[in-house]
């Protein structure tokens, strides 16, 4: 995949992912465990992240989008493949070197209730990364920085001594963002950061993430299942299905000119809050469910549900390739 080395054609590449695979073993037996198969959660991804952009990663539950985020940050060690971040091969880095790299890459989690320790004050939650990476030189430095971080995310610095349960969901998510920003990262994996929030609060957090990106020149990998949100926040969008990226393109291009039947179906299934538009739309209803990632179908992964499947799709796997102007898709229909 050398031709895809710079998928965007412009800008500096911050993160380069090649043939990333993350397989989880399936074992049987209680005392003597033997591996009887593997779940191919992520099965060969190729993409780049350009400095300062937001790449949206969408797909349905179980398609491997969260695992991708974790494998990039080496929270799961990938089974195979390469992840280069600012020129450093992360899969071969470990120990103090990896910890050093983690200062540059942070994560925001989905559930603002589960991702904050209920026994720690906001001050110690946000300050913990500073301690881990030995960034707060003196106690006053550290306090100053924590206050500054709370202000950046729109929380009153006066709250430092409060506990997470005293905050609403949206405010907790802001605490999570402040914690991620503490070490001055250049790259943040946002794993469904707004899906647990109320509708009227979601926009607040989206705007915050957009403002921070502009001010701090952050690069985001934005993982979500809500296509409307992803389209709003992303520069480019990658669509995943059963462990593979089936399509990757610039946001408007993907929406206006989808080149993979799964993307088409996914886009048509998203409801639009406008009854006039809704009445005119044609919905593509997919049959059945996503296959089990422990035994993916032969040929194209989507062949079992694809309304346009041909004989060939059940035997061969289509290549993920450029179909024009940085628009990548994995479908035989693009070959004519």
């Amino acid at each position, binding site marked *: 995949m050398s031709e895809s080395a710079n998928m965007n054609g412009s800008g500096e590449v911050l993160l380069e992912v090649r043939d990333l695979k993350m397989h989880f073993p399936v074992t049987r037996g209680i005392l003597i465990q033997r591996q009887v198969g593997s779940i191919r959660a992520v099965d060969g991804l190729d993409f780049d992240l350009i400095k300062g952009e937001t790449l949206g990663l969408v797909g349905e539950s179980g398609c491997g989008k969260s695992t991708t985020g974790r494998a990039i940050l080496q929270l799961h060690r990938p089974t195979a493949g390469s992840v280069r971040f600012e020129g450093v091969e992360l899969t071969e880095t470990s120990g103090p070197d990896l910890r050093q790299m983690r200062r540059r890459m942070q994560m925001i989690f989905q559930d603002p209730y589960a991702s904050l320790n209920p026994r720690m004050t906001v001050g110690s939650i946000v300050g913990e990364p500073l301690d881990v990476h030995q960034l707060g030189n003196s106690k006053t430095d550290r306090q100053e920085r924590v206050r500054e971080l709370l202000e950046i995310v729109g929380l009153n610095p006066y709250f430092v001594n409060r506990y997470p349960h005293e905050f609403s969901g949206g405010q907790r998510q802001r605490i999570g963002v402040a914690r991620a920003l503490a070490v001055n990262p250049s790259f943040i994996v946002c794993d469904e950061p707004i899906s647990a929030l109320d*509708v009227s609060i979601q926009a607040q957090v989206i705007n915050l993430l957009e403002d921070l990106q502009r001010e701090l020149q952050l690069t985001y990998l934005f993982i979500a299942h809500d296509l409307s949100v992803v389209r709003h926040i992303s520069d480019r969008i990658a669509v995943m299905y059963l462990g593979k990226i089936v399509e990757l393109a610039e946001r408007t291009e993907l929406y206006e000119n989808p080149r993979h039947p799964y993307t088409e179906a996914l886009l048509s299934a998203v409801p639009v809050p*406008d009854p006039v538009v*809704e009445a005119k739309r044609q919905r593509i209803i*997919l049959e059945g469910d996503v296959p089990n990632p422990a035994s993916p179908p032969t040929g194209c992964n989507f062949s079992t549900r694809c309304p346009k499947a041909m004989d060939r799709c059940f035997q061969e796997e289509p290549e993920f390739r450029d179909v024009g102007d940085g628009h990548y898709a994995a479908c035989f229909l693009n070959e004519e």
Partner: protein
Amino acid sequence: MSKTLLKVRDLETKFFTQDGVVHAVNGISYHVDEGETVAIVGESGSGKSVGVMSLIRLIASPPGKIVNGSVVFDGQELMDLAEEDLRHIRGNRIAMIFQDPMTSLNPVLTIGRQITESLELHMSMNRSQSRERAIELLELVGIPAAASRLDDYPHQFSGGMRQRVMIAMGLSCNPQLLIADEPTTALDVTIQAQIIDLVDRLRKELGMAIIWITHDLGVVAGMAERVIVMYSGFIIEAATVNDLYAQPHHPYTLGLLRSIPRLDEAHRERLVPIDGLPPDLLDEPSHCPFAPRCEFVIEKCWQENPPLETVADDHLSACWRDISEIRLELDAGPAGGAA
């Protein structure tokens, strides 16, 4: 005009907890016609679920209590009905499907047993009749090889399939009214599309009315005929679906519509969030519940809670402000839009 199936008047439900009284539903009134789909929209804590659970008295008591109100279903007052008699209506003529298909099915009973249970109870069918009917129902909701799946357990079904089973259970006694409480929220979009398609088809075939509870304004736009918007236990706006989206009258509805990104947006515009936090239901409602978050708040909003009044044909709204003034203010410039 079709006949009114359900008429709710001044329904009020409170929870008496250690921390104080939770004002969950504060006197709501609405109606549902036969064969109609009505959506109730609101965020968590808006009282949308408690509101419909109260209709069939599915409120844990204590701490919950239906303090006031009348619910007339098909000419019969449900509030005066003895528990025994209500049981003949609940699950039979009024059916309910819940949000989470994982937790609302019994994991140790087969799917078949769970469907036949209500058939034997309400329709006094025997084993073989009810089994026959259960197969029919599973086929109706699109479960392949229905006969062979009857003896499977819930864990052997996927999320979408489980929700289909829930719908089959809901439909088992030919209800006149189906209450669907966020039935697609836990599902993926492609599966959500399947379920919405299914429910809409079944509504047309079986002629039942649906109350669809959701927080997703997109889902509502595609399937409902009328929409009721709830906030803090009050109905703050009610209108036909086209009117509500084209001409929202309440600042909260307006705010919601402006705050959600749309899949078909041409330009990347900055979202306009609703500032502040959702209301605390422990507070006694004395002023307009939306006043603390409202951009267009005036003195009166803090003194009196506005009543739900007719503002146009088939359109009710509870706001002291005139919508035309609000629109003018919006057009005049960004009213503190950058939050």
